[in-house]
């Protein structure tokens, strides 16, 4: 039978960051993290722009390979993001 959780179960653990899975950035790394986030956001915005340009080309009926060039650029961003994700996962594994 499932036990109803007691309120005490939900009380905060007094140790900082225990149970949240979060590690606060080291003092000097905060700026690096913010910069990386900004670059990521910028790349996403660029991909959105590439998509709109591709749509424009498609609607104009351009038969050349313009859309594929745009898709290639967009793909590079995805691959870059995937690599960053892998790197983060590996670093987290090493830390444990």
């Amino acid at each position: 039978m499932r036990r109803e959780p007691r309120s005490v179960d939900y009380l905060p653990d007094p140790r900082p960051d225990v149970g949240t899975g979060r590690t606060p950035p080291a003092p000097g790394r905060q700026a690096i993290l913010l910069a990386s986030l900004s670059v990521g956001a910028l790349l996403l915005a660029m991909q959105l722009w590439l998509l709109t340009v591709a749509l424009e080309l498609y609607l104009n009926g351009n038969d050349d390979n313009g859309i594929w060039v745009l898709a290639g650029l967009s793909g590079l961003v995805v691959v870059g993001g995937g690599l960053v994700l892998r790197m983060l996962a590996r670093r987290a594994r090493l830390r444990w």
Partner: protein
Amino acid sequence: MSRIPGRDYRQQLAEEEPWRQQFPYHWDADEAVTRREFVRFAVLTSGALFVGTVVLGILGKLDSRKRTKRQLIMKVGELEPGHAKYFHYPNSGDQAMILRLNDGSYAAYSQKCTHLSCAVYYQPKENTLHCPCHEGYFDPVTGEPTAGPPQRRLPRITVEEQGGNLYATEMNP
């Protein structure tokens, strides 16, 4: 709140702050987004944008949106300069128009406005193509938009003369 040594801190909190009984939500259970989760979400979004671009590329290859069909429009000279004839091309539901421009040459376009698909009409006095829905204007010689909301040119129909007749042969978006 000061911690009493030797006592279970959680128990102490529960007893001293009764509101915790009413709102028993541990911040662990909150919707905390870790940095890695955030990056994963960003990569997924990025992947979706990439897939969207690829889909457009594939659609562009599958359907070049160029329509080829030979269809009689009218006899040469049936139309006076500065007049237009409206017909259907390439399918019976697709409105199109052929213009006899003031200089005597012909130009043919789809009548569908590239803004929101209203019908476009030739106005020979102003030498323009006019879409009354949102006051869109196109150049009758090139089909390019000249004013108003439309951003793309009108699909152009290729016209061929043969045996005293004019034929529509192809429509290019």
